[in-house]
């Protein structure tokens, strides 16, 4: 097992999270540092996710690494019945770090146990997706200038949305106040509310996405309400409009408010919001590049902020 692997945001201390965010900031300010010249990064996508894969591969390429991998399990030997263990051990012979996405929960944790190469979890079923959380935190930090004492409103699918669950876990260090806005079918699971209670985090649950909630928020984190989560299609039709954001709803919102969304969106943010300066979801996706540059370097034990690393690479800029 490699100690630099990143499987879950819960594995990171506050200091480690802040350090990765500092590194992400450095990569944003210094694009094109070829820190990973001569390294090979594997992107093993047992489940397709074009967005996440492109983001990781771009991050690796920008750092000067070469990328190998696959984008779909159908093209790999796992479709011939090879175990995950065998695939990971085989790929470990070729590369310096493995970025993997898998449809089974716990796949990344298990992968770390069968290889000495660092593994970065790029999503395992509905379980964990830590690079998304790092980029969310980075987006919050960039737009608010801080992570502490913010009011964060989460809207939509709070039951199955792993991004909101991981964000709650990461924000436990920063004294947030949460608004959870969802219908009964998609409300925040008890375990995460218990997590808030245990960590002294304030939260209020709402069924209505009201003006009052919007106007008291520093961050509104929208999520996609998926049709397949509903047994009753009529209920879906009713709910999907209840948790949609329109530009008119932002008139009296705070100046520092920013709208986040893990993308892709469907109809939960109407297009008239896009031109509002408070819309931040496209920049948020771009921040994923810097966050993943930092995450890949971290997994390889390369600290871009360390003096020896800086003297080696930054002078060649």
């Amino acid at each position, binding site marked *: 097992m490699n100690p630099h692997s990143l499987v879950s945001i819960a594995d990171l201390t506050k200091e480690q999270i802040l350090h990765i965010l500092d590194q992400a900031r450095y990569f944003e300010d210094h694009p094109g540092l070829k820190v990973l010249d001569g390294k090979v990064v594997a992107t093993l996508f047992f489940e397709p996710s074009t967005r996440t894969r492109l983001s990781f591969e771009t991050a690796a390429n920008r750092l000067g690494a070469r990328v190998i991998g696959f984008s779909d399990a159908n093209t790999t030997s796992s479709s011939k019945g090879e175990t995950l263990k065998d695939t990971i051990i085989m790929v470990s012979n070729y590369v310096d770090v493995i970025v993997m996405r898998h449809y*089974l*929960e*716990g*796949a990344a944790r*298990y992968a770390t146990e069968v290889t000495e190469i660092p593994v970065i979890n790029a999503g*395992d079923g509905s*379980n*964990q997706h830590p690079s998304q959380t790092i980029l969310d935190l980075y987006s919050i930090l960039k737009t608010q200038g801080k992570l502490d004492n913010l009011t964060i409103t989460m809207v939509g699918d709070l039951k199955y949305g792993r991004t909101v669950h991981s964000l709650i876990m990461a924000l436990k260090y920063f004294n947030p106040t949460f608004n959870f806005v969802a219908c009964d079918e998609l409300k925040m699971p008890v375990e995460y509310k218990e997590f808030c209670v245990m960590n002294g985090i304030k939260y209020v649950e709402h069924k209505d996405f009201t003006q009052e909630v919007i106007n008291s928020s520093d961050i509104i984190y929208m999520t996609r309400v998926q049709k397949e989560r509903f047994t009753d299609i009529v209920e879906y039709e009713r709910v999907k409009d209840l948790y949609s954001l329109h530009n008119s709803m932002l008139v009296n919102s705070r100046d520092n408010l920013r709208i986040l969304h893990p993308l892709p969106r469907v109809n939960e943010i109407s297009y008239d919001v896009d031109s509002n300066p408070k819309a931040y979801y496209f920049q948020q996706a771009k921040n994923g590049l810097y966050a993943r540059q930092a995450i890949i370097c971290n997994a390889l034990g390369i600290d871009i902020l360390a003096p020896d690393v800086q003297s080696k690479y930054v002078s060649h800029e």
Partner: protein
Amino acid sequence: MSNPKSSLAVAALKNGTVIDHIPTNALFKVVKLLNLENATNQLTIGNNLEGSKCRKGIIKIADVFFPQDILNRIAIIAPNAVVNIIREYEVVEKLKVTLPDTIIGLVKCDNPKCICNNEPMSTRFHIVDRSAGIIRCHYCNHTVSTINATII
């Protein structure tokens, strides 16, 4: 023995182990956990016996003395079980069972999408709440109540 009536309900034991105070619905899971299905020693299993407070199950196995870490497996489903060590018809030792911090290869994860149900590998659980008997899958993070746990 302290309670002659209930112990008389099953045959007396010269040397061996008596596992007492097993909840009636956990008895056969304990048999499975200790791998007694394949035992060749003299084995007596009693269930729905009248205990001091409620009905219980009991297991007597001759000439076998389990290491404590094997006995601790019982705590997954029968945390209040008492293990009596018998020598020459006398109870020479009474042992309690304690839930280990990590449970490896004994409990099935109830999440069909968990990697441990899809690869040839051991399951692994961590204790979340010892008194309430809540354990969490090391891989997928799903929690299980030990009372409802499926024994592999």
